[in-house]
Structures are given as structure tokens and as C-alpha cells.
């Protein structure tokens, strides 16, 4: 455990000084703040909806990008630059190293999420104040109450993607790992849609092969759309705590599976 925490802290420290991270974070902040301008183009009734949607989408999108970029780079860079030579020759198991890298990445993702969430909420409050001339949260109070749940599931989704990126970077190149992780994200996001199409049996999904494929995908890949609460947020529908727990546990299962697979492969690697 001592080793896991040391690797995690070191990984967090290194990532937090990486310019790529700051570049992505700054772009995400600009993106969220630009929602204030975009909201001006809509009808007044849709203002809050645009701000909520835009913010949640930005946090989710940039979080995923940070998870993919950092996840793919993290382990591969250690091997490529041969820093693993100095680390794995210490009393530290390879499993602890992989888990430590993942925890470090989770910390950096958490920091990014909290910063972006703060900017998002600030944008919502600023807009409310500008519209009504007074700083009040009364009108957006129902949505604000849902935001912690939305952020929790965005974070869980990022962890699932990050664990998949770590899995790939433990045995392949960053480009290949990046391509596969992006593919994994899109597939994960469309699993439930594919399944719905298969159940309805329309269009190309009529054939039994297509149906079987859709069912196989949904059985293997995580349904990332279950972490997406943007509809509930916009409509201010309260999300049951049980759902949040279930979704978190669902994501945690995939994280554990991907990390075990990463450790399995990393244990067999030779660093010649």
C-alpha cells in the first residue's frame, strides 16, 4: 500500500505540472465560459437549459479527453523513457505500480473535475445574477441539487475510460492505445442505442447476426450512457441515490477488471 500511494502521489505531481494537462483544462474552462455567450443566442426560457447542458457536456468531454490522453501516456511513457527501470527495481510489485499510476490519474481527474465544476457553477450563478440583477440560486436550485450526482457519474465514467487506457498502454503504443480507447468510448456510449435497434429489428439490425453482435457488445462493453444524466439535469428530475450507487458499482467493476487485466499483462512484460 505504501508503494501504491508513493507512485500515485508522484504520478499526480508529475501530471499536475504537465503542460498538456493545463492546455486541456484551460480549453475546457474557456468552453464552459463560452456557454454564457451561446446562451444569449437562445430564447430566455432555454437559457438555463443551454447553460446546464453545455457545462455538463464540456466537463464530460474534456474529462474523457484528459482521461484518454493521460491514461495512454502514463504507463507507456514510463516504459519508453525507461523510468520503470529505476522504479521496478525497488521493493514494489508491478501490480502496485499499475494501481499507483491509476490512483494518481484518478487524483488528477478529480482535480480537473472539481475545477471545471466550480467554473460551471460559477457560470450558472453569474448568468442568474446578470438576468435578475441579484445573485440568487432560487430558480436553479432543483438543478443545483442534481449536480453532485451528475459529477459523480461523470467521474466514474472517466475512471472506466482511464482504466481502459492504462490497460492498453501497458502493452501497446500510445497511438494505438489512444485509437482503441476512443473507439471504446464511442462504442460504450452507443451500446444501449445498438441494443435498442437490435430489439426493434429495424434497418440493418434486422439480420440475426447484427442482433447477436449488438447483444455481444452490450455484454462485453460497459454501457457508458448509464453515466450520462444530462436529461435528468435539464428536466430537474431527481436521481435516486440507489441508481447512483448501482452505476458507481457498475463502473467500479469494469475498473477492477481492466486493472487486473493490465497487471496480468504488465507482470509478463520484460524490460530489455
Amino acid at each position, binding site marked *: 500500500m*505504501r*508503494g501504491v*500511494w508513493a507512485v500515485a502521489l508522484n504520478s499526480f505531481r508529475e501530471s499536475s505540472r*504537465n503542460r498538456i494537462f493545463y492546455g486541456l483544462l484551460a480549453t475546457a474552462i474557456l468552453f464552459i465560459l463560452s456557454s454564457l455567450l451561446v446562451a444569449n443566442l437562445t430564447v430566455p426560457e432555454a437559457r438555463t437549459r443551454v447553460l446546464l447542458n453545455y457545462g455538463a457536456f464540456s466537463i464530460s468531454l474534456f474529462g474523457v479527453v484528459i482521461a484518454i490522453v493521460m491514461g495512454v501516456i502514463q504507463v507507456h511513457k514510463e516504459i519508453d523513457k525507461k*523510468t520503470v527501470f*529505476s522504479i521496478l*527495481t525497488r*521493493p514494489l510489485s508491478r501490480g502496485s505500480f499499475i494501481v499507483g499510476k491509476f490512483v494518481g490519474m484518478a487524483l488528477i481527474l478529480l482535480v480537473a473535475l472539481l475545477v471545471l465544476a466550480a467554473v460551471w457553477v460559477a457560470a450558472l450563478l453569474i448568468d442568474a445574477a446578470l438576468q435578475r440583477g441579484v445573485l440568487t440560486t432560487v430558480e436553479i436550485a432543483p438543478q443545483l441539487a442534481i449536480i453532485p450526482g451528475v459529477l459523480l457519474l461523470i467521474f466514474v465514467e472517466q475512471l472506466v475510460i482511464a482504466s481502459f487506457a492504462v490497460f492498453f498502454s501497458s502493452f501497446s503504443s500510445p497511438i494505438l492505445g489512444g485509437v482503441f480507447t476512443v473507439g471504446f468510448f464511442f462504442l460504450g456510449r452507443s451500446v444501449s442505442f445498438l441494443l435498442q435497434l437490435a430489439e426493434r429489428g429495424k434497418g440493418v439490425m434486422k439480420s440475426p447476426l447484427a442482433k447477436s453482435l449488438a447483444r455481444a457488445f452490450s455484454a462485453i462493453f460497459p454501457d457508458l450512457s448509464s453515466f450520462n444524466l444530462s436529461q435528468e439535469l435539464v428536466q430537474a428530475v431527481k436521481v435516486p441515490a440507489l441508481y447512483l450507487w448501482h452505476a458507481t458499482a457498475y463502473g467500479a467493476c469494469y475498473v477492477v477488471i481492466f486493472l487486473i487485466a493490465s497487471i496480468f499483462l504488465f507482470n509478463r512484460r*520484460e524490460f*530489455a
Partner: protein
Amino acid sequence: MSEAKSDAVERDGAATPTAEQDAPRESVIRFESVKKTFRIPILHTFNPKDWKSRGYRTKVEAVKEVSMEVYRGEIFGFLGPNGAGKSTSIKMLTGLVRPSSGRISIFGQPVWDVPASASPLARWFNRYRAGGALDRMGYLPEHPYFYDFLRPTEILEFFARLHGVPKARRSHRIEELIELVGLGHARERVLRKFSKGMLQRIGIAACLINDPELIVLDEPLSGLDPIGRKELRDLIYTLKKRGKTIFFSSHILHDIELICDRVAFIVEGQIREIGTLSQLQSRDNPLVEVLVHGSTADFLEATRGLAKSVESIGQMTQCIVEEPAVEQVLRAAFDQKLRIASVIPRKATLEEIFVAEAKRKEAS
């Protein structure tokens, strides 16, 4: 430098067999018939135009047979030409590469087995390595590289945490090491801005963070300037005086000659020679340097088959010959009426032994 040389001479003198040396010594590193074969993906070497000749390789024998022991308190030099298997052997020793067969142990503990007493979870997580011995070892890889955006104190703190150095002792130890490797002036600089030599120094500090009993250095002198090399040699010798065991590989034979108690030559994955410098130097016929004023074509013709090397140095001709051939070379000089300037017995340098070993292997 002169101090180091006098130390080396002193040790070399002490390397002659004594009753103390005859006594059994504690083995710190032991390689027993270690072999390593790397598999090459067939697509990397397969030529579809020439598939019938089966000229493609799927395996490379990096280490064919290595058996050696390193004893407590000695400085052991590991020599060999490029691609001889030095780094692979060191990586097997440090747990980065798994041997194909054979056994490696540090302080009597196998590097690649996990004790049966370990819990199933620990066995799975540590599947191929026993970590216990690694806590007593420090390793400096060839061309060490660390995280770009960290400072020297931060990277050393990281390694100290990995070794479980208590918090109370950590900062004192880090400061001590930073001063020891002469990086006090660069304490606040990030490692990205470090030169190759500075990275080598921080690598040495990282290697010593746990105050290891065994220090394994892979090409520690490469990348250092002459002053840095002298400082490192002095440091290695100081560590030896503190009872540490040092195992290191190097291409800089002069340095090995100055500080090593024993050396091993590895050529094409096989250990060719192991011994103290004096043992290796006296292994073949002793060499003699014959220096003659001037030269003639007949003299050169006469000495060609007798001397190991014949070289013109200004007005003089230098012949390096084995002791039994000295008389014939002198006779050839007398016959040509050449004046003898000097006849000096000469010990073979490590470089000459090294080149001779490599040539012997080539010839065989």
C-alpha cells in the same frame, strides 16, 4: 586521481592469495548457469521473398551461460563488448528480465521466486519477483531518466517512500545525498533542465537513497566529465570502505582497472574470465617491452612473427613481445646493428586482456 591510483595499487598488491582470502567469503550475488533467450516476432525478420532459405530468426540467445559469484565488500567489474550480454545479465539480476533458465540470488534469496509463505494475493501480485532482497540493493540503470517536471528533492523523496525510509530521516537523507553528488546548486531546478551528467548524478543519489548493502551500476561512468568520473570513482571506493558491495559494468576500462578488486569478461553471452587483475595479468606469458633506436626492413620482417605489436615512436621502434621471444628479438636487433634503448617487463593492461579475449572468441 593519484590517490585513487595509489589505492588501486595497494589493493592490487593485496589481491595476492592470503590465508584471509582462502577463507570462505559471503556470496552477495550468485548466478548459476543463467541463460536468456529472447523471442523475436517472426514478422520482424521474415522475408517473404526468401522464405525457403529460412534465413529468419525467431530467437536470440542474449546470455548463453553465466555463472559467477560476487562477494561481500568487493568492487566487481563486469566487462564485455557491446551486445555481449552485460545489460541483460544486470536486468535479470534486478528483476527487469526473467531468465530462461538458471538461478540468480541476492544475499542468498532467489530473485525470481516468490516464497511459498507469501499470501495468495501477494504471490499473484509479485508473481515473478521476490522483493525482500531488492530492499537491500541500489541500482543505477544505463542512461538514467526521471520525470521531467520533478525537482531532485521530489524524485528522491519518491524513492525514499518506496523504500519506506521513515519520514523523520527522509529529508536529512535527501539533503545528504544531494550534497554528496554535488547537486546542491540545482536543488530547485526541474529535471527536464538537467544535463546528462547531472541526471547521472541524481541517478546515483537515487541508487543510494536506501543506504543499500549492494550497489549495482550499469555503465555509471558514461556521460560524466573527467572530474565527475574521478568523483564517482572516489565515491565508489568510499562506499567500499563502508562495507558496501559494488557490482558495475563499464566500457571505460581504465576506471575499472583503477578501482576493481575482481573483474569478469563476458563475450557473446558467456563468461570468459573471472579473477583479480593480477590473476588475469599473469595468466598468459608475461609481456616485455623492447625499445630499439631506429629500424630496418629486415628487423621489422624478423620481428613480425615474434612480437605482439611493433610500433614506430619517433626515432624509436617499440616491440611488445612475450618473455620467451625476447632473446630472438634482441638477437635480430644486434644482427641489424640497432642500439637497444630499454628492455622493460610489462603487465598487460585490462584493455589488452579485453581485446585479446574478444579476438580469441572471434578466432574460435
